[in-house]
């Protein structure tokens, strides 16, 4: 289903979606992030990209699994806590971030469905916004099977045509959403389609950064596990969690008990994000740490994304959003690293 939506009608359409919980990019200081929206007029789609991807809505940084306590008779009480049944719409999702969710889908789905993930995922409708200009100078979606107007993972893709949006529904969920605002949409004309094509073509050209010959990289990485290369590359790494926490595809987590009170016992079992970049990630209780240094942790990040994930899911675990490059405090650039990997030893 393809439609045209006048920009001035956008808030009115959103208003029609009151049965949904609405998320959209919101600005706090200089920082954009997806936040819950109360008024449709507050949505500002004139933004580049958020610091954290919409992953944080589907796979929140902290999630309660169960609550435990001692009852008055001294017996333990355990209550499962599940995410609320609450359909939601996320506006302004960048194609790379939508694609990223298809990757985490494979991780949290497959042989075993992660109940918590899927309850949120199934209820979320992703309304994408194609990129006119690369949201970041470090965008490289084209290198990893993506594009600034990719539809992968989205329910609806919107493209800014100046005074109007080109709106394409891609799923049943998307159709339902368009139908709710039926009267605000028009049928696209030939000019609209032409404009769309022009914009899509132009936006691809604006993406300057590339990983060349990326196909060579996974087999090359396989040979480089024990290479001293990683020691050199990791020299400037400071073992913070920025690259992984901001990554739309990273999905590692920790489960722990948060004890609010030890007498009477009261607490929660929670899942929180974790990252392979922290030294305690792989620390065994024996004191042994199989990834004892920065080099092995940087290697893990690269290999997971460009070798292991490819081997298992036939896809790169990277959608080229460029966040890890832009936000790395010491300028570690995954494109540079991969370039060096490809050329290593030649």
């Amino acid at each position, binding site marked *: 289903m393809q439609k045209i939506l006048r920009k001035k009608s956008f808030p009115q359409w959103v208003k029609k979606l009151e049965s949904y919980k609405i998320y959209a990019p919101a600005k706090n200081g200089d920082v954009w992030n997806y936040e819950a929206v109360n008024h449709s007029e507050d949505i500002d789609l004139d933004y580049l990209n958020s610091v954290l991807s919409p992953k944080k809505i589907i796979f929140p940084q902290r999630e309660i699994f169960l609550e435990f306590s001692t009852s008055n008779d001294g017996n333990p009480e355990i209550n499962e806590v599940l995410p609320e049944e609450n359909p939601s719409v996320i506006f302004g999702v960048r194609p790379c971030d939508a694609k990223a969710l298809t990757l985490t889908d494979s991780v949290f789905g497959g042989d075993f469905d992660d109940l918590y993930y899927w309850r949120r995922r199934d209820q979320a409708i992703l309304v994408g916004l194609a990129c006119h200009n690369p949201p970041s100078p470090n965008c490289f979606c084209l290198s990893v099977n993506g594009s600034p107007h990719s539809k992968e993972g989205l329910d609806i893709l919107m493209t800014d045509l100046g005074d109007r949006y080109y709106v394409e529904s891609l799923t049943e969920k998307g159709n339902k959403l368009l139908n709710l605002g039926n009267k605000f949409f028009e049928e696209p004309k030939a000019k609209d389609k032409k404009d769309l094509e022009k914009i899509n073509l132009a936006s691809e050209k604006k993406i300057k950064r590339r990983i060349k010959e990326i196909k060579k990289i996974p087999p090359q990485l396989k040979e480089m596990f024990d290479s001293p290369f990683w020691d050199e590359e990791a020299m400037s790494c400071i073992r*913070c969690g920025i690259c992984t926490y901001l990554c739309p595809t990273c999905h590692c987590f920790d489960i722990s008990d948060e004890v609010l009170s030890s007498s009477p016992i009261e607490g929660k079992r929670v899942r929180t994000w974790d990252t392979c970049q922290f030294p305690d990630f792989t620390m065994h209780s024996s004191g042994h740490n199989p990834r004892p240094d920065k080099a092995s942790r940087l290697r893990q990040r690269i290999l997971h994304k460009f070798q292991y994930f490819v081997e298992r899911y036939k896809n790169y675990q990277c959608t080229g959003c460029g966040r890890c490059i832009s936000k790395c*405090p010491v300028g570690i650039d995954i494109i540079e690293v991969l370039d060096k990997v490809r050329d290593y030893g030649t």
Partner: protein
Amino acid sequence: MVNLEDLKKEAKRILEEGKIKYIIGYERSPNGMMSMPAFIKNPEDAERLTWDPSCVYNLTRFLVDEKRRKAKEKKPDTRPVAIVVKGCDSRAVVVLLQEKFINREDVYILGVSCEGAGVVDEKKLTEKLKGKKADKIEFSEKDHFLITSDGEKIKIPAQEILAERCLECRANFPVIYDEVLGEKVERRPEDPFKSIERIESLSKEERWAFWKEQLDKCIRCYACRSVCPMCYCDECVVDTISFAVAADTTAEEKAQKIKWIERSPDSSENFVYHLVRAIHLAGRCIDCGECERACPLDIPVRLLNKKLEKEAKELFDYEVGFDPEKPSLASSFKDDDPEDFIR
């Protein structure tokens, strides 16, 4: 003015002499105008070294890595490591010496003058250039930076794009070094605690609202901790597991790990994390501002440290990072330390 060729020459010389293991310095990033940390081992690579107002990093952080690496080596290379330091960074070296974390003979200090200016705030610069991409930034004549953008050269008053901490800096010339490049240019900040006074002048509830909004953003990536040269503890209060495990550690001893702070990014946990971090750095933070620069969410974490720097100065007349022989703020006292707050 620092002559870059002198720096390269000196770097080449010390590497050729073979008395230095490697040099921790700055090099130009292949993308954009910002520099990045460089680790130079071979004399011919000394050419890569740079020094310009984009050299924001406090490289002393990497002395901590060096010490850790060395401790693991079976036959450690005991030659010193050379490091390029600005005024502020040199004070970090002083604190590391004061805390006996490094030995003076393990480090060869190449000081560089900030030319009476300092380093840039990347965000301020981006704003200033209004979307134009800077390719290069250089120190220019007094108080100006020279920016090359799309082949065009623009001169911008340093004050307009300097990092906030540089505007409040009291040591823009190295306080300790083996070799120093550039001249000492006096530049006294009008008000070294201006950023703090802005917050202090707010009402209690305004202060709370400010910090609540800021710290609620925290995602606990610990970049502020990881980038800090003073955060060299082997085990941090926020680590989930005890790192102090040996072959004979019992299960009971492992259970001694105290969960002072949960890893959930909830308001209370974020607050306690940042307060602990600030207290831990009281009398140790030299205001290199790296914590704030590294923060992906633009939380002004530096202000918490700066507040305690101000209190240490005003209450105890203590200044950090000038004298390695001095006892630390927390391991000393004066008989007449103020106690008007005590009942």
